[in-house]
């Protein structure tokens, strides 16, 4: 099953399970989804459950948040997470703060989902990766599935969660295939996953950077004889600190890989975590590979270099191992 189909399966199962689940977004219904993630769901569930919205992110995202306060469980698609920026007041100030400002009287069981990635040759406005920005706000949960299995399990967990959960997908992963059980399962938020076991180096990554890191690990093993462990965070907030630390204690060398820009990226937090709780375990300084610190470039040849790729990860890993 593809990553796209896994997301769709999660939504279909939750639409069947709970009549308060509603899908909403631009082109999700009649058009079958800009990236076909919601294909066929209008036909199966009808226009009350699968709703096309105008191009009006602040309006419809805010509407979903308001509806969630009364117990509706909206799953809102952003065609790109880049478009969240025009709805940031709703996403941060309203969904993220209402529970706190009401002294715990209100909760917002809303999911906002959509792709958050560069690498698609569309220029800077459509290539943002806001997981670090959004996860920096207490009150908000953020997950970044890397595989079809995690996409389904995390999406189902997100829909059942009673807090706002923002699911950041990746258009480049939509066609990736993987084993996905037909039955009902969830991947709990806040549980990282060791995607590859190894002894010499820990790579911590999330989202598509996990796939990139796994490819790099293959090269490091076959060409350099290095055994690499790849830890997939899966969830940015809540964050599974223990799995990261356990891997560090095992390999004693760390490379952090993410598709964010370096300044205040997720890995800045991970690096702080490791130095504060496992400083004595480190045999070498922590290194990072992130996107080159510039707005996303349009030129495809250079964008492929701007984002972490296996060659950059291998090169940086060898520095950690040197």
């Amino acid at each position, binding site marked *: 099953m593809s990553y796209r189909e896994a997301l769709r399966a999660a939504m279909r199962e939750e639409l069947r399970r709970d009549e308060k689940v509603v899908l909403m977004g631009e082109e999700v219904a009649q058009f079958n989804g800009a990236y076909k993630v919601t294909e066929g769901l209008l036909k199966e569930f009808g226009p009350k459950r699968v709703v096309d919205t105008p191009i009006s992110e602040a309006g419809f995202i*805010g509407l979903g948040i308001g*509806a969630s*306060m009364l117990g509706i469980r909206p799953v809102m698609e952003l065609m790109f997470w880049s478009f969240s920026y025009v709805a940031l007041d709703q996403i941060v100030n309203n969904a993220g703060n209402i*529970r706190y400002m009401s*002294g*715990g009287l209100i909760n917002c069981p809303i999911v906002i989902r959509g792709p958050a990635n560069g690498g698609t040759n569309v220029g800077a406005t459509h290539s943002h990766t806001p997981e670090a920005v959004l996860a920096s706000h207490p009150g908000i949960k953020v997950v970044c599935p890397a595989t079809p299995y995690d996409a389904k399990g995390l999406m189902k967990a997100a829909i059942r969660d009673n807090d706002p959960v923002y699911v950041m997908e990746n258009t480049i992963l939509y066609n990736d295939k993987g084993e996905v059980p037909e039955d009902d399962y969830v991947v709990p938020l806040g549980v990282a996953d060791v995607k590859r076991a190894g002894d010499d180096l820990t790579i911590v990554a999330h989202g598509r950077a996990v796939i990139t890191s796994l490819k790099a690990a293959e090269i490091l093993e076959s060409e350099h004889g290095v055994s690499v462990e790849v830890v997939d965070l899966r969830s940015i907030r809540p964050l*599974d600190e223990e799995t990261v630390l356990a891997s560090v204690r095992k390999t004693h060398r760390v490379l952090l890989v993410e598709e964010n820009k370096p300044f205040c990226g997720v890995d800045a937090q991970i690096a702080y975590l490791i130095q504060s709780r496992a400083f004595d375990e480190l045999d070498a300084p922590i290194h990072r590979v992130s996107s080159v610190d510039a707005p996303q470039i349009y030129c495809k040849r250079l964008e492929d270099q701007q984002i972490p790729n296996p060659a950059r990860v291998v090169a940086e890993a060898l520095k950690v191992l040197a």
Partner: protein
Amino acid sequence: MAKPAVLTHPESLKRPAGPSEYAKNPVNAGMSKAEKVALYTKMARIRHFEQRCIRVYQQGKIGGFLHLYIGQEAVAAGTISLLGKDDHLITGYRDHGHALMVGMSMNECMAELTGKVTGCSKGKGGSMHYFAPDKNFWGGHGIVGGQAPLGTGLAYAVKYLGRKGSCICYMGDGAVNQGAVHEAYNLAALWDLPVIFVIENNGYSMGTSQERSTAHPGCLAKRAEGYGMAWDVVNGHDVYEVRARAAVALRRAHEESKPTVLEIFTYRYYGHSMADPDKTYRDKEEIKEYREQKDPVLLFEKELIAEKVLTPQKAKAINEAAMEEADAAAKFADESPDPTPADVTKDIYWEEDNRGPDTSSRGTIIFE
């Protein structure tokens, strides 16, 4: 679509204030004497609570911002007195009047202002962020116009759940130039949502008059026409008129599931907030004229005395009781404890507050 007879102001506002021509309107004529007295009492309570807030603020016990509702009482009182069990409301930061009208206590409201744990939001919200979801009151929102999509969403949920209800979404005249408000208008009209957008037009968006902030002459409600929505203009100094005209919008929401924009003309006697010295953008004569001739509490008092529902003595007693209640609330707030340092990191996530078999997530969610 409703076609009001005037372009700018309600007809009744063009004449000197006198007996309400809406007294015989069925929604008002149908009120019992006790209900009328109760409505007057609520308006007086808002007035005296707010006046007591000024003193508490001047004593340095209220932090940050304090936006007073004095002068605007008939708007919240008139509209909220019409609401039933499936009618919801949400407003901006000038929210004290709405809170008291839905039945929140002066104690919890005053304690919130002074940041005490006994406040309605446990001292975590402040003046701009009162909430009482058990009373269908969804805040209390600090960002101008940011509540408009939320209110539209509450109306969407009411409709989705098959209930015959509505949401009144209040905003100030300054909010009408925010994009979120226009997006909410579009969705409300597009999806036939039972929402009533009430523009509490007090003439000034902070210190900028309507003439200096808002393009196109004429009333703000008329912008509803761009979305094919019904609209009306209302004299907000006359609580009977507010009730009569809001009842039409509420029927439209309940019976037809259609939205309305109601522009209610009102006036605030104090600055935008207590931080506003109120010296640069309007003259004292203007404020004096409103206080003396159009005060909504005094006008309603006169009305009820003329109807022989109230006597001057009874009105005096009601006001004295409201003052005493406000004094007691200030004392309650004074004597209440602060939240503890441990409280700072509570009430952030539902899941952290409700750990049990139904909660699945793990990992660190509050960071050091």
